């Protein structure tokens, strides 16, 4: 057949995911906190302002259990291509209040903070090396990706983990975009290309087993 263009408008009704409970081994779990910065979480309106509490809860549990916590922090320079080529107004400049992680979940000594210069933590920024250094391997590690935007930077991070074959969980009360963008993004995670290693939960539904009690990764089939 000849290729047919899409209709001018496509109307889709999406079911949203149902979060599930998980008990995780802390030594095989990473919390990646993406761009929980003043620019996104303290200004204006929107769902991004409402996910600090969920992050506080999840991080408290992870710290108590001894799970690995990695923050990524989005920063830009005046010379960044978004500004000089792609017409975006200056934003997230290094050293500004905008680019600081919100006080409520400020990194503690010993946490890893990776600065990134694009939407994608996987583009150039050393995350692979950090995971390798910590012995956190694909196929045996669960990663919970929090932060904003669920449809932008946190999305790039989550897809990147799934594409590298990590068991990847989205704690839905810890990540945000608009309702429409969340629904659209989560629909991709529930599709055939991703549902095999991605799942949904809430900060209230995640528990950690005592270190050493659970040595095997989660039975992933149960998450799909």
């Amino acid at each position: 057949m000849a290729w047919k263009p899409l209709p001018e408008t496509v109307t889709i009704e999406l079911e949203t995911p149902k979060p599930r409970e998980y008990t995780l081994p802390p030594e095989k779990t990473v919390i990646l906190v993406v761009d929980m910065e003043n620019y996104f979480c303290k200004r204006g309106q929107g769902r991004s302002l409402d996910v600090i509490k969920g992050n506080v809860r999840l991080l408290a549990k992870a710290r108590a259990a001894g799970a690995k916590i990695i923050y990524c922090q989005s920063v830009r320079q005046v010379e960044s291509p978004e500004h000089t080529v792609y017409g975006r107004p200056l934003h997230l400049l290094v050293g500004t209040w905008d680019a600081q992680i919100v006080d409520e979940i400020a990194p503690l000594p010993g946490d890893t903070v990776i600065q990134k210069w694009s939407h994608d933590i996987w583009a150039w920024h050393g995350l692979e090396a950090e995971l390798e250094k910590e012995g956190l391997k694909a196929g045996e590690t669960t990663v919970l990706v929090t932060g904003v935007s669920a449809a932008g930077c946190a999305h790039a991070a989550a897809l990147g983990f799934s594409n590298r074959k990590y068991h990847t969980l989205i704690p839905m009360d810890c990540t945000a975009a608009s309702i429409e963008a969340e629904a659209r993004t989560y629909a991709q995670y529930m599709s055939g290309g991703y549902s095999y290693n991605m799942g949904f939960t809430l900060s209230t539904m995640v528990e950690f087993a005592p270190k050493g009690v659970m040595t095997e990764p989660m039975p992933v089939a149960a998450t799909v």
Partner: protein
Amino acid sequence: MAWTPLPDKVTLKLKTPVPRPVTLDPKKTALVIVDMQKRFCSNPESRAYDAVEGNALLLKKARDAGAKVIFVQSVRTPESLEFTVFGQEPRLLEGTEETEIMPEIAPLEGEIVMKRYSHDPFARTPLWDILLENKILPAETAVIVTGVSAAVCANAATIGFSNRHYMTLIPMDCQAAGSEEQEALIYAKYSENSYAFTLSTMVEFAPVGMTMKQLAGVEA
């Protein structure tokens, strides 16, 4: 405010992007063809099959003009984690017929064919080194991404290039997903200036191409 869960169902009314003509300098353009393989494109009832014709047209234009062409080919080994840990049925095993690129657009001798072992061409592959070696550099190169699935592997490539600050072009007749709805959902993601939609029939090559800012719609 307190966080509120999504409603059980969300209805989206998505406007399809309007493709536009582009004139490209072949020295500052790369064509990246993702997974146009027999497993995905052989069914004549599929949108993936329908995308072969657009790919053939675009590939011919790129080759005639001397633009760099990179084929990305999805393969797996029996030891791939999808099978051994996550319980998927083995597929796309190296050397099998289903991994072959469609004959209509088969790579020519000397063209780059990069195998990868996951959905993402940037994940644990030499792609970044290949781009640097061929002077395909961010912010000064337009990358045209074609292939399948528009909602999985071609999507990973598309956002991967944009997230690395390449001007990223989506020729809509050369990408395909399993359904119109899946394509519409994915195209709604590509909302920033570093993405632009076109068609194989709307791409022309010329010694003086549009600037990155013009392609991004930032300058007239």
